[in-house]
């Protein structure tokens, strides 16, 4: 695997859209060619090299390419956009759309990530060591096909609307999560190790939410369904089980109605 290191040298006055920072776009290119990749500051087209110092050549394919993003990129959007393979390490906080529409490969964000990270993710892995913004692993506006595969781990807190319209894959938040978790989901799993605010699993058709901490207000559509012993992420514990959203439609599998599941650690 070849490593390309890009370091922010000229911060944008506004925000930078750098959807070319991905192993797919870098693959097969020398440092010089990578520096020519297009980026946009508002409506002004520019090149990656104008904002970043690029060192190292990429591998022949995305899978053979690792990118390390250094410097203050808190005003850089779309890092890891549509990535399918390879590795991407973001040393500091990045803005919106990190790993949006990603299908494969691995992103490690050492700082925070902004809203819309891993939008409509299909595969791969996103690890955020800081906090994640709103709409983590959610569907694009209007689309009923949300995150369908892959894994997201947030070591800090997550914002609102994580996993909206989720179909598959897994989201783990070690910290707390803001309102609305897995709204409209039809599959997949979200684990929140800290506290959840409210409005969990609203309009959920199918899927699983597991909460280790407190829930400020439960959705009325989640009906108590006894207690269960579960092993979650290596932790064995007793959980209160709820099924829902009882107000929403549900599918039948072999004649039995399948509900969404919410487990809260007792």
């Amino acid at each position, binding site marked *: 695997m070849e490593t390309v290191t890009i370091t922010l040298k000229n911060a944008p*006055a*506004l*925000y930078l*859209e750098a959807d070319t920072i991905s192993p797919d776009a870098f693959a097969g290119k020398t440092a010089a060619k990578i520096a020519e990749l297009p980026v*946009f*500051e*508002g*409506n*002004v087209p520019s090149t990656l090299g104008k904002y970043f110092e690029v060192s190292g050549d990429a591998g022949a394919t995305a899978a053979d390419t690792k990118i390390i993003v250094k410097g203050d990129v808190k005003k850089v*959007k779309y890092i890891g956009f549509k990535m399918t393979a390879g590795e991407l390490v973001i040393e500091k906080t990045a803005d*919106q*759309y990190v790993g949006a529409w990603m299908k494969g490969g691995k992103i490690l964000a050492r700082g925070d990530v902004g*809203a*819309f990270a891993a939008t409509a993710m299909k595969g791969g892995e996103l690890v955020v060591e800081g906090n994640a913004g*709103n*709409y983590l692993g959610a569907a*694009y*506006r*209007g689309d*009923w096909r949300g995150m369908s595969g892959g894994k997201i781990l947030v070591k800090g807190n997550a914002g609102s609307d994580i996993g909206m*319209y989720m179909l598959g894959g897994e989201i783990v938040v070690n910290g707390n999560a803001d*309102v*609305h978790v897995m*709204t*409209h989901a039809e599959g997949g799993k979200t684990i929140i190790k800290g506290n959840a605010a*409210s*409005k969990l699993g*609203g*309009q959920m058709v199918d899927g699983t939410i597991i909460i280790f901490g407190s829930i400020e*207000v*439960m*959705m*009325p*559509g989640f*009906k108590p369904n006894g207690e269960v012993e579960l092993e979650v992420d290596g932790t064995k514990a007793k959980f209160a089980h709820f099924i829902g*959203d*009882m*107000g*929403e439609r549900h599918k039948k599998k072999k004649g039995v109605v399948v509900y969404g599941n919410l487990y809260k650690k007792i």
Partner: protein
Amino acid sequence: MTKTVTDVICPFCGTLCDDVECVVSDDGKQLLEVYNACVIGTEKFLHSQAKDRVTRPRLRQDDGSWKEISYDEAVEYSAQMLAKAKKPMLFGWSSTNCEAQSVGNEIAEISKACCDNTAATCHGTTLIAVQDIGLPSCTLGEVKNRADRIIFWGCNPAHAHPRHMSRYSIFPRGFFTGKGQMSRKMIVVDPRPTDTAKMADVHLQVEQGRDYELLDALRVAFKGEWLPDVVAGVPAEKIREAADMMKSGRFGIIFFGMGVTQSLSKNHNIDAAIAVTKDLNEYTKFSIMPMRGHYNVTGSGEVFAWQFGFPFSVDLTRGFARYNPGDTSTIDLLIRGELDAMFTIGSDPGAHFPISAVKPIANMPSVCVDPHLTPTSGVSKLHVPVAFNGVEVGGNCYRMDNVPIDCRKVVEPPEGMLTDEQFLIKVRDRLKQLKGVA
């Protein structure tokens, strides 16, 4: 001698009353009396005649004072600003006609700008919800002719849409609703016992910010499933009663307003209210409709949509249209520091945005096109007064139920004043020169 102009459209709210009558002087220059309009609409018509009205563009000087300039100079400032900006915003459009909106869209396209309307602060979250689960709706005449269940959720038409209840929703006697108010049951959901709530058969005094939970509870109640004893401050029994009342009607409608679009859960509140409506269509006929505020905010969304494909918060900076509120929405863009020029027309963000989103406007090149003095004109570098839409110039507008109505011109604007459309055409043409496009 005076003359009376009939079938005048009121350019205040999304109710878009089109039965207003105006008495004007014989020379067509003075508006003397207004009939049929509500108190706000009347004020809107009459204020257009204010003696202290600003009639020429003004540019703020370094010492803070205004200097009167010509329209051509105002065009030059606007075009230069838009030509130079990396990420300009063209905001507003809700108090102007579709003709002007259309020219505005050309300007946005040429300058590769962001463009957005006042849905940003009223029903943008409704549009997000509609994109998520649709919208079973109808025209207001359907409500008048058929509806026997009227729900006002998080809206207060007695104050915000004063003639709504008399023209369409509560009092009129329609084809199948010959007994008017007596044919209808009225439910109001609001954290306050508002003047609208006081008229209702049932008032659910929901705990503020818990509408999403209450709507979910209604859906559970329709299905006869288990409910907690109290949801959102409302006892389960009362929720079940309201659910039964909704199901037992022949034709029902939910009107909703900013009580739900602006409270916690925002788009999700509307999403759930639409789900409630969809559920009710398994039992009876039900519709839902946003109580749109500005008289032509709906039209702005329509024009954006057929020209760019999205109803608000459109970002053209990359040369093609993109949309994602949270990223491309005006207030987020302002607060995040993403914009470098602001062109406001047909709205007043200065008064209606949170102060943290107004401060950036004061610190960037900015134009405010508005017949009034407003907080926006107060913080902008250039104020361009224009003729009053719907009073001094006609043009097409869309009512809250998307029905288009062509506004009428009632009186002449003061001499030498341009309309929105005329000013925008000049800006567009100058911008084309600056950008070197045909």
